[in-house]
């Protein structure tokens, strides 16, 4: 899988079809809004950066910890995903957070604001970690880091 979201390079690129299976018999013209189950399906098959186990199986991501809210402006939506590192001192928590951001940025249209956060109390440095993940400039400069993007690419490889 390409590690670079198409939106970052070509704003005019068509929004990729989100392959949400399930509603095959219903062929509505207006697609159903994306729900938290679909967000979960996008990230649950991602792989842990160290083990060949998915984030869903490890319960790093949970359906109950995904929220989608409409912003006041009537167009944009905010996806909040709180993840739970397997251990409180997990040294790869930043990479997991970044991987989740990249996966959602690649998959969702630009009107989705993506807030990926480490669940409060589940990591020794969760406040620090969350400030980093909330910092657009740091996240985007990390996406230019090849080593980091190599790790993130491996996490996403297992999707589909």
């Amino acid at each position, binding site marked *: 899988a390409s590690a670079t979201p198409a939106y970052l390079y070509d*704003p005019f690129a068509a929004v990729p079809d989100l392959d949400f299976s399930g509603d095959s018999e219903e062929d509505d013209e207006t697609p159903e809004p994306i729900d938290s189950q679909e967000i979960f399906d996008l990230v649950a098959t991602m792989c842990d950066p160290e083990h060949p186990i998915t984030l869903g199986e490890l319960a790093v991501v949970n359906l109950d910890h995904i929220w989608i809210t409409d912003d006041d402006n009537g*167009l*944009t939506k905010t996806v909040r995903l709180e993840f739970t590192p397997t251990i409180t001192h997990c040294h790869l928590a930043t990479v997991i957070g970044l991987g989740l951001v990249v996966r959602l940025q690649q998959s969702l249209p630009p009107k989705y604001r993506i807030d990926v956060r480490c669940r409060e109390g589940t990591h020794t440095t969760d406040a620090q970690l969350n400030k980093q993940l*909330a910092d657009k*400039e740091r996240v985007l400069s990390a996406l230019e880091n090849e080593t980091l993007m190599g790790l993130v690419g491996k996490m996403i490889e297992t999707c589909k």
Partner: protein
Amino acid sequence: MKLTQLASIAAHPDRVWQVAPHPTLPFLATASADKSSKIISLLNFNTLTTLDGGHKRTVRSVAWKPNTEDEPVLATGSFDYNAGIWRQFEDEATEKKDWQFLVILEGHESEMKRVAWSAGGSFLATCSRDKSVWVWEEMDDDNFETVAVLQDHTQDVKCVAWHPEDVLLASGSYDNNIMLYKEGSDDWVCVKVLEGHESTVWSLEFEPLKSPKYSEERGSRLVSCSDDFTVKIWTRTEQTGLGSGGGQLPSILRGSQPKEEWECTATLPKAHSRSVYSVSWSKVTGRIVSCGGDGKIVVYEEAEDNEWKIVAEVGLAHGAYEINCVAWSTRYDKDKRGENDEIIISSCDDGKVNFWVLDEE
């Protein structure tokens, strides 16, 4: 009042982090994640030149050197850790104007976040994720020396801005603080820490001297914006300085450090629901404009001393995209209404640059 879009151009195929209108000439410069900068005309909004090949990663920041009308000079700061100096020159043979990548300023150990020239153009400040602020002095043409490495912040330094008159530098950081620096008797020193923001300080700008609300009696002011969703105004209450040089001071003061006292005098009415990334202070009207991750552009006016109100607001100013930068600029296009007419320029994540006019409703 009402903000109306005057023009919108697809300037880059990738995010535009910053736009900087030239202080006296009719064009602006952009800083983009596509590793280039563009020079765009403010007469007709056409792209005049692309400055590329200078940086290996995102160009995060651009700044025009003041007082260089004949041969404009632009500084660029990049995630590749370096700053670049570009100059426009006229090819004597063809009489065509072109741009030259003159100098590369190396030294920072991580991504550069902002570049800013001092009012007279003799100093360039740069800041970086390496937690430091560097002051460079142009000793002679294109020869820069590092005169200070300031390491007072404990985190990523996001922005730097110079006072419009004094040799006073401000920086804002991921550590939530704003720091002020001056040249002391031996060295540059941090003379004041402004605490008050509850999260990252994204941008800073001093009140222009020409602003109709500027008052020497009240003291200089500084506007800052933050990831805590607020915009704050800070006012100078006291200063002692070494001024034009330590040698002229009475001996008793020699070796003492300059002093600055500032306090937060206003928090602008809350309008943003995500990070506020950029602020700009108009030298014509004294109004302030802000923008942010919520896609809004907001204009504030000072109704009474330190009492601010919102006079205009546009949501979804760049559609679904986040807005990274706003700047006031002199208006130059064919429909300008007098010498003092102004526009607002904004830039966003999908590579567009938009131009706005503020009108009475």
